[in-house]
């Protein structure tokens, strides 16, 4: 197995009023290139903290984080985070401008000079991938929650980083929109070469989306198990296989 992204004995604790609370304990994980992996666990298990460490927003107390054997030190455009909060879009920018923001940042990072037309073209391409090309001149506050998250997804895609980090991005939308977004995400992932690390507490979401599921537990945040999910895409929530895996994971999470 080629180890593309490697987490080696990562530990992280937070200072609380009385004691140091271990948030993450001895996390070891190897992630393959272009893999779709979910990190699944109850709230407070440190899964978001782990994602922030991978993003470079926060540092582990000890342990190593390697990409292609090189140590990752800080945040960068190769690991773009998609957040849960709707406010991740800039309200003062139109939908298209929110996406060109990422195109421009990526071009500058790669020292590419892109013409205005080329920037817009690229942004429009990603907007049409999330099926919002007709909303390019809207402002974020004019969109529904699901549409906002789609714009944010387009922005994340437009940064053209190899790795996309997703911190429960569909956690604040209604369940129907959530299913649409999940479907869209698996489609996009199959079309493009991207590694996705997706954090969720929703077992169905994990089973629907990913090839591997990392199960985590609370106090301290530890990996219980990594489960392969070889079901072919597109997956059906009603299939027998789906429900078998769902029940197996439920048993393992809340034994």
């Amino acid at each position, binding site marked *: 197995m080629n180890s593309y992204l490697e987490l080696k004995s990562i530990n992280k604790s937070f200072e609380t009023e009385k004691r140091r609370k271990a948030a993450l304990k001895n996390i070891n994980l190897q992630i393959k290139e272009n893999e779709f992996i979910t990190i699944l666990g109850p709230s407070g298990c440190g899964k978001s903290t782990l994602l922030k460490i991978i993003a470079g927003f926060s540092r582990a107390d000890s342990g190593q984080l390697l990409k292609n054997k090189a140590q990752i030190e*800080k945040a960068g455009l190769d690991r773009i985070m998609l957040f849960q909060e709707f406010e*991740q879009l800039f*309200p003062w920018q139109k939908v298209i401008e929110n996406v060109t923001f990422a195109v421009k940042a990526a071009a500058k990072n790669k020292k590419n000079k892109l013409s205005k037309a080329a920037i817009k073209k690229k942004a429009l391409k990603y907007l049409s991938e999330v099926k919002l090309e007709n909303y390019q001149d809207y*402002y974020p506050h004019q969109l529904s929650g699901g549409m906002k998250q789609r714009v944010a997804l387009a922005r994340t895609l437009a940064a053209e980083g190899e790795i996309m980090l997703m911190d429960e991005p569909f956690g604040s939308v209604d369940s129907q929109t959530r299913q649409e977004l999940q479907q869209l995400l698996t489609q996009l992932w199959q079309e493009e070469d991207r590694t996705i690390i997706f954090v969720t507490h929703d077992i169905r979401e994990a089973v629907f989306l990913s090839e591997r599921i990392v199960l985590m537990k609370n106090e301290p945040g530890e990996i219980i198990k990594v489960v392969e999910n070889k079901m072919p895409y597109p997956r059906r929530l009603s299939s027998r296989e789906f429900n078998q895996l769902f029940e197996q994971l439920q048993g393992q999470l809340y034994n």
Partner: protein
Amino acid sequence: MGNKYHQRLIWITVLALIWQLTALSGIFSEMIFPGLDHIFLALIESFKDGTLVKQIIFSLSIIIQGLFLATAAALILALSSYFSESAAGLIDTLTALAHPLPGIALMPLILIWFGSGRTAILIVIIHSVLWPLILNLSTGFNSIPDIYTLIAENYRLNKLEFMFKILIPASLPYFISGLKIAWARSWRALISAEMLFGAINSLGGLGWFIFQKRVFFDLPGVFAGIIVIIVIGVTVEDFIFKKIEIRTVKKWGMLK
């Protein structure tokens, strides 16, 4: 919104009527309580001979210059205090000391240091604008969502890009409300400074204009000056700032 102006117009008419009736009733001498007809005649007269227009231009040009300089300074200071902790300490201390100090209290000092010309009035205006604007800008900068700083980090924005692409637009509602306070304070400061500092070559602004009218006991002239001051104040607050808000923060859904 239309309703608000409608109501306002009605009440102004009612108040004007009461005024005129009081003046006509002869309870007070015409010298100290002139009727609206005298006031409007004085207003038209002052516009006709050009004296009032000159004073308006003088006052507005000083206040615009002062607002511009103070806004630039406030932006620089608020940004430095956002990025540097030691700058924040200094600027916070200065603001805490200077903000409660009325500009009027500084006037004797300014007279001695800078004389009584345009510079002196400008300094009073800058003082009245700078501190509230710094306070508002700093509050705005410090209340942007944490997620924005993470995004800036993630997309590798440098400090300059972060400032212009995120920090300033994200805190625009605070910036605009700071400018409103700044305008209101500087407009008051301007009128009082003009009265105190007098005129050079008969050019001393609106404050000086009404002060001058008082010297000659020209009450209709005094009221004419007051009306102009009210009209300019209301126009800027209700129309210019409203327009700016409608075209920016309201359009962006950042202000209800």
